[in-house]
């Protein structure tokens, strides 16, 4: 048997759990990390499709900065990498077909010729981007679509269908939203369905270059493609909610059943863990130590050493004198996941009564986030930019950052 390349650990927010004679809720943090051996390993070459918005609203600084940023990104790819470039408005243009990056100058010249156009039909761009990616998708490349948008689009349903197809084929979509008018709910759904990271919010055009470079850096850090965690629970233990908490915060909608949870975590990077917070309903138990769950990891590439199993063992105590040990790391996530749910509920339902958002929640945010929360608490609507800011800050409540190269 090969050495395990992934380490899986789990811990409850407090332990032992009390014997209460009633149903109780418990919070379990599950983390998966790449082993040192993997961190030093060889990276997969990239198969990237850059699908960019060239609609009328991109005219001027947005398109200028975007072109410069793409050329800078091309300079950081190698001839082992595949790149295709697709521009869409209400039509679609194949700026550069999928091919190894052997001639950056010719690619740059093609980018320079992109002109702003008319409306926005993102699905056209996504569909062509996916077709280009499929030419090389498979175990030999890390396949990703970088999807850039600055506004609302027609054909949102078609975009979601394409995102689902991409996810099923191991192609993740990484959205970048420019300005205040892009559809943050749609781009978040696209990334979630395809197994990509949450949208990167670029407020000013000059930041596009840093955002694209971040995409290349993130793709280069992947050591396990298509990581999946399967968890099975014993009778009397039911997963109620599952939330991804690292490297970013995102509720898990699908894959949660009565006694089992399957979460497609996507790609594991060498320097960032993947972590889940599970809220478990536990039926009355007697005192003692029990195995309550088994966790198993696997990867889409079938990489040897990524099949790892771990047991979750929990102690229940009826003794009032035995004080439970509290785990601040798990509580950190419990507090933030709860805060994110409350904020998102307020953002999603503008008709709701002014929400009683505890001051402690606002304190988890920076000044800009707090300012938006105050507006929500007063029952006023947020501006489009205010919503973007608060959603981005909420997504960032537990997010982790790659250690920058020194």
């Amino acid at each position, binding site marked *: 048997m090969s050495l395990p390349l992934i380490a899986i650990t789990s811990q409850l*927010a407090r332990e032992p*759990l009390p014997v*209460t004679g*009633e*149903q*109780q*809720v*418990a*919070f379990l943090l599950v983390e998966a990390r790449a082993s040192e051996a993997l961190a030093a390993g060889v990276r997969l070459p990239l198969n990237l499709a850059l699908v960019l918005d060239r609609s009328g609203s991109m005219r001027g600084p947005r398109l200028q900065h975007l072109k410069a940023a793409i050329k800078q990104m091309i300079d950081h790819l190698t001839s082992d990498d595949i790149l295709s470039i697709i521009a869409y408005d209400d039509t679609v243009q194949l700026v550069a077909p999928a091919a190894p990056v052997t001639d950056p100058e010719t690619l740059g010249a093609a980018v320079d010729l992109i002109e702003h156009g008319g409306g926005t039909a993102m699905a056209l761009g996504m569909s062509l981007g996916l077709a280009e990616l499929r030419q090389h998708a498979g175990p030999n490349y890390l396949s990703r679509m970088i999807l850039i948008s600055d506004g609302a689009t027609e054909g949102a349903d078609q975009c979601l269908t394409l995102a689902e197809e991409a996810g099923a084929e191991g192609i993740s979509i990484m959205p970048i939203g420019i300005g205040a008018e892009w559809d943050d709910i749609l781009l978040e759904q696209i990334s979630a369905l395809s197994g990509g990271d949450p949208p990167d919010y670029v*407020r*000013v055009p*000059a*930041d596009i*270059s*840093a*955002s694209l*470079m*971040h995409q290349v850096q993130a793709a280069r850090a992947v050591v396990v493609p298509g990581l999946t965690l399967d968890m099975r629970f014993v009778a009397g233990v039911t997963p109620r909610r599952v939330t991804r908490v*690292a490297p970013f915060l995102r509720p898990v909608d699908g894959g949660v059943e009565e006694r089992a949870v399957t979460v497609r975590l996507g790609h594991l990077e060498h*320097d*960032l*863990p993947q972590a889940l917070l599970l809220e478990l309903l*536990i039926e009355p138990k007697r005192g003692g130590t029990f195995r309550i769950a088994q966790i198993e990891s696997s990867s889409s590439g079938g990489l040897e050493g990524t099949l790892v199993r771990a047991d979750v063992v929990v102690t229940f105590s009826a003794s009032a004198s035995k*004080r439970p040990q*509290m*785990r*601040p*790391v798990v*509580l*950190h*996530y*419990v*507090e933030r996941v*709860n*805060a994110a*749910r*409350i904020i998102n509920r307020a953002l999603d339902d503008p008709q709701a009564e002014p*929400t*009683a*958002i*505890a001051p*402690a*929640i606002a304190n988890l945010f920076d000044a800009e986030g707090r300012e938006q929360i105050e507006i929500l608490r007063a029952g006023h609507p947020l501006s489009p930019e205010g919503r973007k800011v608060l959603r981005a800050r909420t997504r*960032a409540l*537990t*997010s*982790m*950052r*790659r*250690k*920058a190269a*020194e």
Partner: protein
Amino acid sequence: MAIRCRNGHENMDGAFFCEQCGEALDGDTVQAASVCAVCGQPNAPGAEACANCGVALAPSSGGAARASRLVLANGVSFDLSELESVVIGRSDPAAEVFPEIDLAPYGGEKEGVSRQHARLQRSGERFTIEDLHSVNHTYLNKQQLKAETPTPLKNGDELRLGRIILRFETD
């Protein structure tokens, strides 16, 4: 047995925070996790190094900090030794913005420094710099930083905010 928060919302036994409003529910006071300023990983209180990226974490108490400073080209120096987190920018009394390190007296406005340009944070012996969506960006050793992405600093690093250059020094 249900637990009620102080706003009267009912929560399940075992909950730590109210699902409706986020208030902490009655229970033991727990020391907060020590969040790594570099990668964002929460760590057990009192941990010396980050469990994810390994950088030194701020000691929970005591410990003399090393002397660290930011130095302008004209030799003016800002002492960082006592600070955990500071904003560098230029003061604007009309907007009631007063950053801890104020570059207004050194031509901040003319040289393109934003009111709240960048944040410098200490985590143990380590410092990070983070651009705060400044208009003219923050550059570390001539590389533009991505906004809201703390990046580690080492002795002798050159920071450029707008057109103002600062050198980071630590003993």
